[in-house]
């Protein structure tokens, strides 16, 4: 559970909001709030993770500072989310990674990239790494296929496990039943809301930034980022099927399914994260928990570099730079997977959980 002080502040604010309810048109948080008369620790943890940080309610708030009620929902909820990420981290020993997260993530990613690249050169020798290869299996002449698979899939599978454990702890604390998580209608609705980023919509007008101005910029940039990531993931999944099921080794043709998906995804990661970084830089710090910016920035850079090195590898795969780029890309992807459960990526897990809970409360329980 997050810290008492943050939970208490969230409860104080929700009691004020629940007596006002002017913001019900912005997002899911306020309709979810009105279903409750009192707020316990789990309720505010749930509501905080349902909040997409659009900030509409802050600029609309007649009780925002300097009013003596000092209501600042986005900041309080951002802080609470940050504590959620830390406290539900598994194994618990890694909770510390959420203190100064940006530095940790940067350090881990850089270290892993250096190690992977260094080992590649050390084991294969400069001549092999700098060779020019064409046709089937050319990547694997630099790093053997099995090595790539083990190096990437081990931390990835571990991340999935860590996500799952964290989600189940969160799910229990917000007072939901385990099976609700898999309720087909709730799950479908939640995935749809997440896929569209509906609640970055601010009631159809977008988020508020850099001040009380409504803008779709943040939603668009986030869509590029999220869908870019998902397309890259899809590309890798398809390639895995190609390799194991059909026995077709990479690299694939420019117009093959994995390469098209990966290219589109990579482009998404070149556009989305810089957009979000720019928005973050320009935005008003008041409705935000600026202490988490390090975590956000590290994660956005990580996604951007994943896309950039992936596309560079694609473009230069038939040159002598392929070996170096492959090693660097693998290092960054490895860093991404290793830091997945201990960085900003976890927001997707708890946000989706909160959306499922919201859909369940609204559409199923009725």
């Amino acid at each position, binding site marked *: 559970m997050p810290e008492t002080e943050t939970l208490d502040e969230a409860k104080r604010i929700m009691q004020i909001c629940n007596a006002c309810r002017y913001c*019900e048109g912005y997002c899911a948080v306020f309709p979810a709030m009105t279903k409750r*008369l009192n707020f316990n620790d789990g309720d505010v943890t749930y509501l905080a993770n349902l909040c997409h940080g659009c900030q509409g309610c802050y600029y*609309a708030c007649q009780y925002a500072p300097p009013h003596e009620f000092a209501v600042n929902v986005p900041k309080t909820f951002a802080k609470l989310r940050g504590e959620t990420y830390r406290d539900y981290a598994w194994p618990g020993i890694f909770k510390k990674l959420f203190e100064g997260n940006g530095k940790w993530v940067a350090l881990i990613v850089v270290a892993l990239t250096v190690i992977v690249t260094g080992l590649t050169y050390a084991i294969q020798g400069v001549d092999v790494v700098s060779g020019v290869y064409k046709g089937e299996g050319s990547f694997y002449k630099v790093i053997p296929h099995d090595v790539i698979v083990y190096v990437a899939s081990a931390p990835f599978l571990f991340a999935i496990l860590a996500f799952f454990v964290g989600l189940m702890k969160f799910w229990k604390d917000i007072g939901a039943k385990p099976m609700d998580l898999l309720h087909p209608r709730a799950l479908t609705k939640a995935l749809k809301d997440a896929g569209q980023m509906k609640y970055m919509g601010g009631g159809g007008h977008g988020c508020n930034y850099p001040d009380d101005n409504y803008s779709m910029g943040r939603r668009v940039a986030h869509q590029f980022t999220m869908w870019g990531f998902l397309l890259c993931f899809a590309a890798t999944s398809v390639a895995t099927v190609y390799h194991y099921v059909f026995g077709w080794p990479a690299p694939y043709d420019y117009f093959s399914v994995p390469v098209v998906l990966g290219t589109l995804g990579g482009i998404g990661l070149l556009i989305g994260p810089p957009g979000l970084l720019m928005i973050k830089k320009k935005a008003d710090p008041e409705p935000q928990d600026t202490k988490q910016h390090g975590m956000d920035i590290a994660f956005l850079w990580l996604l951007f570099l994943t896309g950039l090195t992936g596309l560079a590898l694609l473009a230069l795969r038939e040159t002598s730079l392929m070996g170096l780029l492959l090693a660097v890309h693998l290092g960054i992807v490895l860093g991404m997977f290793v830091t997945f459960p201990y960085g900003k990526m976890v927001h997707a897990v708890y946000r989706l959980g909160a959306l499922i809970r919201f859909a369940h409360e609204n559409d199923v329980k009725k």
Partner: protein
Amino acid sequence: MYPTEFQLPLTAFLEPHDVLILGAGNAAMSAAITARKMGASVLMIESADKDLRGGNSRHVRNIRYSHNAATDYVTGAYEASEYMTDLMRVTDGNTNEELMRFMIEASEDCADWMIEQGIKFQPPLSGTLGLARTNAFFLGGGKAMMNSYFKTCEKLGIDIVFEAEVEDVEMEGSKFVAAQVRHKGELYRVEARTVVLASGGFEANIEWLKEGWGDIAENFLVRGSPMNTGKVLRSMLNNGAKSVGVPEQCHAVAIDGRAPQFDGGISTRVDCVIFSVVVNKNGDRFYDEGEDIWPKRYAIWGRLVAKQPDQVAYAVIDSKSMGLFMPTVYSPIQSDTLAGLAEQLGVDAPTMEKTIADYNAGVQPGDFNATEPDGCHTEGVEPKKSNWARKIDTPPYYGYPVKMGITFTYLGLEVNKRAQVFMNDDKPAQNIWAAGEIMAGNILGQGYAGGTGMAIGNVFGRIAGEEAARHARN
């Protein structure tokens, strides 16, 4: 286009504008935008700073306007005739009927006009107060609406000076000459060709309220802006402008007695009265708590409480009623015994216990229904409780202190359909128009129907802006 908010006031003040607008709420914005779009140069004088700008409009939630069909924002038609019937009923005919009809008919395009200015409405969602058909709700409420207005002003090149309070209005006969404006300690004389008075009422001026209410006004809470001290209104009356209404007429409701002196807004309301027994500090009941559904009786309780000792009363419920009404911003005071509750509330305990025992004895059997008058009543108890009467017998017991919260005042300036301000000789002033709360008393002699103030402000604001711009440019 020139910069607005950060302009040195001296520059803004030195150059006489076509239209000077006193205030920066909904009515002022309606006037300013209309005048500016007609080509006039416009200067707005706002007494609040940027955080608290927009007068009482920052606390509003919706606008009641006439419409012939459902839209994305209202669930059905609200014809002018129905609007008229509603306002005639709440004001008890204490109105300028012709002006009321005119306002209602003109209100038809209010929502469309506001959308054009960038204001956003929300689809009907909760319909908390049963207004989803008659009123369109602003997305995020009044402050969000005001933010959109200010954005539009910036785009249009309307000058605004914040933290500038009008101390006096300078006139020659029935002609406006200049406003004396205090800004950050300095007094400026601001000339303009025309002026629109949209500076609100005087509900934050306790001394003035005392003229109508006597010393009990000391114990009133002000639900809205502390800036509404009525200086412009007072100055106009001193200059021979004709008044309308009386100082004690206002919209006031019962709100939580623990609310801040100013700016408590919507969240401080206490909606449990119909389910409760309301006692004064002596422990006695004084009015039928179950007379009608709450929104209809929302307004009278302010006045009822104001007439009790120390202008305070206490709504007492038991645990059966928890959850039947809107949650409150302050948690109720709670006890397992009525005597314990009375003690914590500061109410005479033996009397309150006896009052509630007598009430309980008078409660008749019936089918309780929280959502409509259910006929569950008392007998042999004075005053009677007509509906929702259930025994107060299931601890824990809860109590809410309630006080009168004043929303806005009705004493104002007499105007005609052109929003022209009248002088005491019954002739309109030459270059002075008024809109919003400062002239709402022309239509609202008493009583209130939620969202009407916004329509009055928008309709007369736009007319005032148009008239002033035309006058200034001729």
